[in-house]
């Protein structure tokens, strides 16, 4: 049962991921569709940021991730390099937890 479930998840996930490249790679989408499709990562990434900052499954929680991501946002606004943004986000969160909150 376990290996069948793993196979289902693997094949299903690959089907989801590969449909775009198999169907549309190398071809030119109509301009407006292309614009829409290239805005998708903005919406999805923002959703992931929001979800992974304040959500805990189905409930909202404000915890030590919030100051971490807030500092990361500041670093992004100041055009800090990627590695520094990630380090600051994790570091601030770790420090806040060390100080006893979240």
């Amino acid at each position, binding site marked *: 049962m376990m290996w069948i*479930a*793993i196979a289902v998840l693997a094949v*299903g996930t690959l089907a989801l991921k590969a449909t775009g490249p198999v169907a549309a790679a190398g071809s030119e989408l109509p301009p407006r569709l292309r614009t829409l499709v290239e*805005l*998708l990562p903005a919406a*999805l990434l923002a959703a992931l940021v929001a979800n992974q900052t304040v*959500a805990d499954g189905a409930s909202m929680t404000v915890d030590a991730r919030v100051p971490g991501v807030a500092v990361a946002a500041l670093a992004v606004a100041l055009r800090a390099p990627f590695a520094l943004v990630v380090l600051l986000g994790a570091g601030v969160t770790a420090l806040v937890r060390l100080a006893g909150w979240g």
Partner: protein
Amino acid sequence: MPPSFRTPGHASARALLVETLPIGAAVAAYGLSYGVLAVAAGMSPLAATVTSLVVLAGGSQFAFVGVLAAGGAPLAGAMAGLMVNARYLAFGFAIASHLPGGSLPRRVLDGYLVLDESVALALGRGGVDRVRRFRLAGWTVVVGWTGASAVGAYGGALIGDPGTYGLDAAFPAGFLALLAPWLRTRRGRVAATVGAGLALGLAPVVPPGVPIVAAALGAVAAMAVPPGAGDGGHADPALGTDTETVSGVHDRASARGVDDRASVSRVDDREGRRG
């Protein structure tokens, strides 16, 4: 233009690696904790490691393990994982028109590499190295995620709770950094705001994975907004600008110099058809 002509826009392999290593490191840290949790939930170390290699989607793998740990059946875990992964359909299409295509195995292999990190890095940075960035980030995650899962699964509790190191904040921080290029355009900002709002609003009421997919509607909302004055400064002419204005695209292409042979030939095609 000779095919071997390398424009100033090409980044060295070393520069690209420097970009992707932080992603690999964060992914590896989580892979370790996944490996430990998976075994704790009853998977064999081999099953945990193989899952990482063939699924390559952390969110769904944690969902799978969560269902097992709560006493659910493996197939139920697989279903939960697939819902969490639904957003990859959108990410796959987002990167597809930038991929060279080719044989079916090549397309499926590129599909395998579709991840939040690889697509976001490739589309956000843009330019000639888009495909290289995509594939390099993808393979970095394959190695980092699978390797770390193996170490965690076979090696036991090696780093403890990732939260102690603030690693749970590392991902939203990283995604925020990857999101930054889109935030410089008006449409990108609208897409991001609506997407985040939808995800947060829906999270309490629908199953996991669905809020993120619904957030894709943020891109639709952004299309209703005219491109802003700041749009067009981005390397990708399709982002936030009216691509039906051929002269506008051509102006931007000539202002940047030729930094993408493919986009220039597309401009020529459009002019040819209209001419």
